[in-house]
């Protein structure tokens, strides 16, 4: 997958917009965020991804100023923002509930923050008009929030939080309340707006697909800690642990003992009487160390005959087929009753498909297709 040229995190001279330095946040006995250090750069679309209760919302609320870290500090453009109250920060937030003011119409909602800044009337009108245009809401300017649809409300919330041209925009599950189709459209719209305005976006989401779609980098969190921070493709193709591999997309995890088999090559003994699986890895494993081979279902080939040139082959019996229209997922039972998933694109019509339940098939993949993980 080609990387776009925008990658300030690889440039050691680049000055980050936001710096979390050893930030810990405790609520009573509960530690929501644990000794966390993170840099976010200007113009980034940064996603905080994790299950509920992983600390991602707490991180966002600390950026907005609604929570104060128990220890550590947070810098915005080189300035420590911990003592700065929310109304004095160049940060705006789009709330999960949208938090539109029900007694004000769309226009006044968008103008709310600008009025607090004492912006001159003409400039204010111009700015609100610009925001309405950006979010395609011109026709609804005079409506009250309860008179417009959920998707429109979401765009009002976005326009309101962008109106003050913040250095940093925080989005708390911005598409949580939208249905799937609208969500996908909105994701692209959001990326468009981010590009047009050049604002740094930090988005909190529990939806891995959404994070992968919109973000320049994704931080996967669990129990108040960052597990992996990388580009979507790196997270998907090179997860650093089973948790990340499992959280992002579908994956087969095969546990076994790793043995060195040449430079950066290992074999994984995963079941008695089965040929060991070959895997390439940059990591070093001690002999017979317990390891996990993570392999994505779409990288596993299903064939009736054993392929001659494949590095890894396993025989199995089709247990189940999930037909999803564009793709089919085969659940194949292999040695020891273990279930492996393999995905194929349905390029041919259904009546021409080769396999059905109980067929004996061969699964195969190359040594570079999977990732060997320590934990």
């Amino acid at each position, binding site marked *: 997958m080609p990387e776009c040229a925008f990658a300030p995190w690889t440039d050691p001279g680049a000055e980050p917009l936001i710096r979390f330095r050893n930030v810990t946040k405790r609520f009573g006995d509960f530690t929501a965020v644990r000794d966390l250090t993170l840099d976010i750069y200007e113009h980034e679309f940064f996603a905080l991804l994790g299950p509920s209760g992983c600390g991602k919302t707490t991180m966002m609320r600390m950026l*907005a*100023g*609604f929570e104060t870290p128990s220890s550590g500090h947070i810098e915005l453009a080189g300035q420590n923002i911990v003592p700065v*109250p*929310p*109304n004095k920060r160049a*940060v*705006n*937030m789009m*709330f*999960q*509930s949208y*938090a539109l*003011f*029900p*007694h004000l119409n769309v226009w006044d909602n968008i103008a*709310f*923050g600008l009025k*607090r*800044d004492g912006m001159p009337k003409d400039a204010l009108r111009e700015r609100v008009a610009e925001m309405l245009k950006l979010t395609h809401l011109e026709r609804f300017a005079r409506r009250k929030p*309860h008179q417009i649809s959920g998707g429109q409300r979401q765009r009002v919330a976005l326009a*309101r*939080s962008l109106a*003050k041209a913040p250095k940093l925009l925080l989005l708390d599950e911005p598409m949580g309340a939208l249905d799937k189709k609208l969500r996908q459209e909105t994701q692209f719209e959001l990326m468009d707006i981010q590009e047009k305005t050049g604002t740094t976006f930090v988005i909190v989401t529990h939806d891995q697909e959404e994070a992968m779609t919109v973000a320049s980098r994704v931080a996967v969190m669990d129990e108040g800690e960052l597990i992996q921070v990388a580009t979507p493709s790196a997270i998907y193709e090179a997860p650093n642990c089973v948790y990340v591999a499992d959280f992002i997309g579908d994956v087969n995890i095969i546990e076994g003992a790793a043995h060195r088999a040449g430079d950066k090559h290992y074999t994984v003994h995963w079941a008695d009487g089965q040929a060991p699986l070959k895997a390439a890895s940059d990591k070093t494993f001690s002999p017979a160390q317990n390891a996990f081979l993570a392999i994505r279902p779409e990288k596993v080939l299903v064939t009736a005959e054993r392929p001659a040139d494949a590095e890894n082959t396993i025989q199995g019996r089709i247990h189940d087929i999930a037909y999803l229209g564009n793709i089919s997922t085969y659940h194949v039972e292999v040695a020891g009753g273990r279930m492996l998933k393999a995905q194929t694109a349905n390029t041919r019509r259904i009546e021409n498909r080769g396999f059905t339940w109980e067929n004996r098939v061969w699964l195969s993949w190359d040594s570079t297709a999977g990732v060997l993980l320590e934990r």
Partner: protein
Amino acid sequence: MRRVFIIIVPYLWLLALFLIPFAIVLKISLSDVAMARPPYLPQFSWEAGPGAFLAQLDFENFTFLTTDDLYWKAYLSSLQIAATSTLLTLLIGYPIAYAMARAPEEWRATLMMLVILPFWTSFLIRVYSWMGILSQEGYLNQLLLGLGVISEPLIILNTKAAVYIGIVYTYIPFMILPIYAALHRLDSSLIEAAEDLGCSRAKAFWLITVPLSRNGIIAGCFLVFIPTLGEFVIPSLLGGSGTLMIGKVLWEEFFNNRDWPVASAVAVVLVLILIIPIVLFQQNQQKQNEAQS
């Protein structure tokens, strides 16, 4: 059929317990006082016929109300006392309602209970106990004298101050409950959003919390203002002879002077005055219902 029945029941109730009594009072107000039983004339009789009966009715009592300045002064004084005590009740009730709505979830039921608790004791007994508290030898003066805050007992009972204390005490639950209901529904993320967009705490309160609890404030004000305007027990027990309120005038007219027609005229005018705030209150409730649906 079922629907008609459901609608007809409240209307019958209204007819039997409000409209018919009101028509009787109106009729008495158009009659003349007499040494009779009941003490007014004419009495309706079928022999004379409705024509002769109606011919004897007149607006004399209403004109009488304008000739003696006692009446309009009493109306004005009642309006002033009702308005002032409504404002006082709002100023004290709003912070209480706000604190209740912000209190931890597990406390709210208890706090609500404390607001409603006084209703478990008779209203009259509660007002009488205020006499015990506010009188010159009362508990309040004893406490203040004991603490050395004052050297002479304060004269509170039988002044307007005592009336205000009594009204605010009695009616404050009617102010707290609708405001609490409005504030309780308020989404706290709205306040955070306002702060995020550049408001200070105070500004966010003024621009978001107050407008969004407007309907509660209006409902509370009417619920206090309307009954206070015709209040009789509190001014007569706590206010002494110096406090002029129309409820007291009405009572004296009716029981002391036995002038039923004039007393009825006073009551009819009071109802007419009250119709304005009642209609406004109804409109507010209706708007609120529409906004919710």
